[in-house]
Structures are given as C-alpha cells and as structure tokens.
C-alpha cells in the first residue's frame, strides 16, 4: 500500500517515444494496419467458427452414437417389398444387440427427405407450416430414441401401407414439441394433443402425441425441429431401415446385419450402410472444413504478423544501437530500454486495434449483408483487441531484450 510513490517515479517516456514514432510514421502505420487487418480476419473467423460449431452441436434428438441406417433395394422380378420389410424387421428386432429397428422414409440429418405443409384450418387459402415427414410404425419412438411428452404412441392397428404415388394420408400423427408450438403458438404443447391438423390443404389428421425433439433431414433448414411422424410402412422397392443398438455394439451389429440381410434375400441389394455419426459428419462436412481452414488461416496470419513485428523491431534496434548505447551510458537501466520498445509497440498496437475494431464491424456488416451471417456479439471485439495487444507485446519482447543487452561502451565506438 505504501509504494504508490514508486509508480510515479517511473518515467514512462511517452513523449519521446511518440516523437520518435513520428519520425518513422510509415513503419508505425504499416504495423498498425497489419494488426488492424489481422484482427479483422481473426475476430470474424473466430465468430464464424463458434457459430458453425454451435450448429453442429445441436441435439439431433436421436441416439447419434448407437444408431445406423441402410437401404435395401429390390430388383428381382418376384421381389415383394411388403413381405421383405416384414421379414427383415422381424429378423432385426430379434437380433441380440439391437434395441429396435424400423423402416423409415428418410434418415434424420442425412440431407434428403420428404416435406409437407400442415394447416390448422382446412382450405387452400390458409397458410401452411412446413414440416419434415418421417413414416414409421409403432416402434418408431423407441428406435429413434425420442420421448413422448404428451399424448400417446401409434398403436399397431394405426399403421398403414403406403403405395407408390399414394396421395392419401393416415388420420393420425405425432408432432415434435417445436412443430406443435409453431402450429398452435397460443396454447401449451400438451393441449395440442387431440387437435386436428390438415395435410394436402384439406385432409384431416388428429395429433395423438407430442415428442420432445427430433431433427429434420436438412441440417441447413431454418425449421430444423419441425417434424411430424406418420404411422406407415412403405410398399416401395427401395426401403430404408433405421436401427438403434445397445451402447458400444453398433460396429459389430452393423457387420452382422449387412451379411444377414444380403444372404436372406438374393433379389435385393443392401447398400448405404452408414452410422448416424458418419451421416452427420457428411452433412456437416462443409462446416468442419470451414472450421479447419479458418483455424489454419488464423494461426498462419498471427505468425506472419508476429514475425513482421519481430523483423521490424529487430531492424529498428539495429539501427538505434548507438543511441541505445548512449542511453545506457547515461544511466538508463536495461529495463528502461525494454520498456521503451514495449511501450512503443503498445502505442502502435493501440492505434491498430482501435482501427481493427472498426474494420471488424465493417467486415461483419458486409458478411451479414452478403452471406446472411448473424451479427457479431460485441464481446468478441474487446477480446480480439486484447489478444492482438498480447501478440504485439510478445513479438516485440525478443528484440527489446536484445536491445537491453547492448553494452553502454558501444556509445564510445564508431560503427
């Protein structure tokens, strides 16, 4: 508490530093500009990275780790789709290691699927809410690992068989909580059970249950959690199966299932066997790639900027060798020399990061307007400023240290 006095005794020498900087304006401006642009790129990149990672971490609703899917395509002339599906599901559901298996029209997060519009009132003139459709039987809830939070599951007698080109829809449906709330924003989701919604403008479906969460196939869709379940199996030549296994048994079960199904019926082809983790990895590949590229860019850019500062600082130390020697001879301590260069860099960096803050916002506005990105959160900017300050200080420390080691005797020599 008593050494406040010592602080004031240190002469920060801001005046001389500033005057010296003015003699080499261009050098200072170049570094400040570099810092500003580096900050602009880094802060915007970090922001993009964080946003993308958040998207990838959204809960899909299904058991990503222990689920997989495959396609069975019949080609033989005597191929009977409905019978094959029945047999396959019986085999799969009785296989040890499998929790449950279903036939489904589309795989969550896979990128391809089926969408429809639901209305709360019948008639073409009313607006529809878009939703992804999953056609599943009464095992759907268990296989997809979703929870019924209101109402009830489909009964086995509810399940219909969809023909190719069929227009008619079953009269029951289960909605996700998000879909229920989008259709009926005024009432709690639990009260949506028992309501009638309309598909194909006029065909009624009764909502018999609400599930907690399930994502649509299209990860870039704004209404990712708008999903409806329709109680159906499909009489299609090509059909998809979704299978959930016991924890950590997925890979062994996958191998077993592939062989089992391929051998059980020679009139069809088993293909596209893929874990949900891989499916998601494919759908988010663009995001993963962008994150890796931006990270690399940030690292390289920081190194380039830091090396630039090191180079220029070393150079200016070399140039001022004689003056530094003179200052040392006149009694300046080593720490005073270090402080001089650190402070000089701090002043330049300050100009850089202030300008950088403005540029960062400008680039963000540009990205918002051109690519529809979200606006950056304010706190990224002060954090970016502090990081760039630290980079500058770290880079200049080496040359400054070297400057401090210049012997006072140098002042007496002519170079």
């Amino acid at each position, binding site marked *: 508490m008593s050494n406040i006095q010592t602080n004031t005794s240190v002469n920060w020498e801001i005046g001389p530093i500033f005057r010296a900087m003015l003699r080499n304006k261009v050098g200072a401006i170049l570094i400040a500009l570099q810092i500003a642009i580096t900050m602009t*790129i880094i802060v915007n990149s970090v922001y993009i990275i964080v946003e993308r990672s958040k998207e990838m971490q959204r809960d899909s609703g299904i058991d990503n780790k222990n689920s997989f899917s495959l396609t069975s395509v019949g080609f033989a002339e005597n191929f009977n789709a409905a019978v094959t599906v029945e047999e396959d599901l019986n085999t799969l559901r009785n296989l040890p290691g499998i929790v449950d298996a279903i036939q489904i029209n589309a795989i969550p997060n896979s990128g391809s699927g089926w969408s429809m519009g639901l209305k709360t009132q019948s008639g073409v003139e009313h607006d529809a809410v878009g939703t992804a459709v999953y056609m599943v039987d009464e095992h759907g809830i268990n296989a997809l690992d979703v929870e019924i939070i209101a109402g009830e599951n489909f009964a086995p007698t509810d399940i219909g068989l969809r023909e190719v080109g069929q227009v008619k829809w079953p009269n029951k449906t289960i909605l996700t909580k998000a879909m229920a709330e989008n259709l009926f924003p005024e009432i709690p989701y639990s009260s949506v059970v028992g309501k009638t919604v309309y598909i194909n403008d006029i065909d009624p479906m009764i909502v018999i249950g609400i599930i907690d969460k399930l994502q649509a196939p299209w990860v870039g869709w704004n209404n990712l959690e708008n999903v409806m379940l329709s109680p159906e199996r499909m009489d299609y030549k090509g059909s998809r199966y979704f299978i959930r296994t016991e924890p950590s048994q997925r890979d062994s079960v996958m191998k077993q299932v592939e062989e089992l199904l391929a051998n059980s019926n020679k009139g069809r082809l088993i293909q596209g066997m893929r874990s949900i983790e891989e499916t998601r990895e494919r759908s988010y590949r663009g995001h993963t790639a962008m994150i890796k590229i931006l990270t690399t860019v940030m690292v390289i850019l920081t190194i380039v900027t830091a090396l630039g500062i090191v180079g220029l600082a070393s150079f200016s130390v070399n140039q001022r060798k004689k003056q530094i020697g003179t200052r040392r001879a006149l009694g300046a301590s080593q720490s005073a020399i270090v402080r001089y260069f650190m402070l000089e860099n701090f002043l330049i960096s300050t100009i850089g990061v202030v300008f950088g803050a403005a540029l960062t916002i400008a680039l963000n506005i540009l990205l918002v307007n051109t690519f529809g990105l979200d606006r950056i959160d304010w706190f990224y900017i002060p954090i970016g400023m502090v990081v760039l300050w630290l980079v500058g200080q770290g880079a200049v420390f080496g040359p400054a240290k070297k400057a401090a080691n210049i012997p006072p005797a140098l002042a007496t020599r002519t170079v």
Partner: protein
Amino acid sequence: MFGYYIKLALKSVKRNPILSLLMVTAIALGIGACMTTITVNYLMSADPIPHKSQQLFHIQVDSWDPNNAYSDDADSLPNQLTWTDATNFTLAKKALRQSAMGMSGGIIEPAGDDAKPFEASIRLAYTDFFPMFDVPFIYGTAWDSQSDTDREQVVVLSKRTNESVFGGENSVGKTIVIDGRNFQIVGVIDDWQPMPKFYDVNNGGFNETEQLFMPFSLKEELELPNWGNNNCWKSPDGEGYKAFLQSECINTQMWVELPNDLAKAEYMDYLNNYVMEQKKLGRFPRPLNNRLSNVMEWMASQEVVEEDAKMMMWLSFMFLLVCLLNTIGLLLAKFTGKSSEIGLRLAVGASKADLFKQHLLETALIGVMGGIAGILLALVGLQGIKSLYGDFVDDLASLDLSMILVALSIALLSSILAGLYPTWRACNIAPASQLKSQ
C-alpha cells in the same frame, strides 16, 4: 546491365537471409491462400460449355400456387417443370434442339455368375440431349428420335459403366439387364463431366454425370422411380404413378438450343402462347411469367458457387493484404539499411533512375520467388481442400496453366507494388548526409 542488376539483387537477398526469407514466405503464404480460393471459385463459376453457352437455354414457366410465389421473392419462378409441360415442350419441337430430362436409377445385373449387381443413376432424356450438349461417344451413337416415340428399351452407357460391365469393349448391340428388364445398348459415351453439371444443378451442381442414359418417354412407360428433387404445391389428383406424373409437381428439367435472338424471341412467344392456352384449361393460375436463361445466367440465378467459397476468397485477399503490408515494412527496413550504400552510389554518379530500376528488380526477384513458393503452397492448399471436402471437389481443386500464370502475375505485381514506396524512399536520400554520418 540487366544481368548485373540480377546479380546485385541476388547478392542483396543473400546478405539478409532471414529478412529475405521472411519476405518470400509472407508473399508465398498470401499467394498460396489466394490461389487456392481463386482456383476453387474459378472452377465453380467456370463456363461448362463455352462454345455453346449462349445458345442453350433453360426453360422456366410459372405453374405454381395461386396464393404463394415459388419462394419469398414475389417474382420467383419454379426451378423445374412439371412432367406434362416438359413433355409438351419437347414434342412441340419449336427449337433447333430440345430435351426434357430427369433423374432416375436402377439396379444393373451384369451377366456372369460371380458379377455382383449394383445400383446406377440414370439420366432420362430425349435424343437431342447428346448433340445439344456435344456429348462425345466412344462407341455407337445416341438413339434415334423413333426410339423416343416408340418408347424402345435402349440405353447409352457411360464409359465407366461400360468398363465395369463389359470390360471396356465395344458393347453396342448387346443387351444389359436393368431392374430385371432387357435394354439394348446403342452407344457408349467418353468421359464427360461438365463442371458445373449445368444441365441439372438442383440435384447437385458438381455431382458426377449419370451412369446410364435412356429415353425420357420410358419414365411413363416403365414407371421409373423419380430420383432427385420433386416439389409440389398441390397434391396429385388421384392415386398412383400416372396421377403423380400428370400432377402439378415439378421434377423435370428442360433445355433448348436456340441459335440466335430471333429464335429466342420466337420461342418466348411460343411459351407465352402455350401458357395462355393452358390457362383456358384452368392451369397456370399465376400471372404470365416465363423465362429463358442461358447457361451462365442459369448458373448465376441458381447460385452454383458456394457461399463459403466466396467468403473464403474474400478472406484470402485480406490475408494477402496483410502479407504485403508485412513485405512493405520489411523492404522499408531493408532498404533503409542500405542507405549508406545508395548514398555512395549516388555520390559517385549513379542516376536515381538506375538505382530505382535496380531496387525494383530486387523486389521483383523476391516476388517471383514468393510466387513460385506460393504455387507450391496452393497445391498443398488444394490437396487440403480435397481431403476436407471429399470426392465431390476432385475436379474443383486442380491447378491449370492459366491459374499458374495468374498466380505468378499476382505475385509479381503485388511485390512490385509493395516495393514501390520503399524503393522510392531509398533512392530519395541526400547522398551527403549518408556519407557524412559514417
């Protein structure tokens, strides 16, 4: 003199090896980053059929919902046609060449007991598809228009399909089993991969060309499955495949070849008349709005270039800017260090112009070295892009000669620009003061 300056420049580069290395590295990194992103953008926005892209037109007609436009933009048009309209347009033969087209798929069963069946994608089209898009053939030809009319089970194979089923030999005249049906092979095409795959961008703008081609009329005849995008504003009137085909659902692309503006204007009239006729039948409830887009217009309207690629390119230009600022700073430092030498040269009679040339040459040398290293880095960068994005970018991540020239010119130009100010400053010193201080 030039040779002497080069010698001097090399000497100067060697004198400050670390500083020179820093500059070359900075330029190389900037050029490497820019070349990587420019290449990807350049290939994504390339003209896939340069000699004809002005004469090929994609057709759009507004057959959509009376209550809602196709997308948020009120003027927007559906990006595909209904099966009915595309078929009618093709059969009307109002253009030089025309083809409705769509995607399907089936299982090929190669002959022989040990050969495994496999799934193949099918492009359904009319015979005009092949001459219209200049598809090269190795064996045989396209089917004739009679096959389109008579719905004959004929097929054209891709080179790869022919290799996997027939070992690459001339298979014309043979039969191939697809989904349990016999098809007669009439032709095998050579490697053909337009980039972007302009004729059907809504099923993946950079996807591979289909493995089989067969007459579009077979879609109705054999009730072939509809692969690719299908979009409906209204459900089909009735159950079954026929009702689906005849519905207002859009799932078909359509291209026409119109050699000149007159032909284009006449075709536009034809489309407008067609829609007016259909309106009398109760279809096309929206205002008359038809569009013909040539290849590049269509690529632009469908935003084929990925936004991430564009964003990446912007960032890489900023990256290059940082690297150049870095280089300017380092050059400034370097040339200031040479001021006594420059002073001496000026004092003994060298002209400023000579010195200017000499130092500019030195920066150009650094630029060229940076550019060459940058091209190598770009190759690494493109490999990185390939490994990150997977197979589909294989054709989007290759460096061609023109790109290499662009890289070198950017490197040279930017390094000379970066060198201008430091050089100018170095040559504008008073020789006396430099000599005195020593």
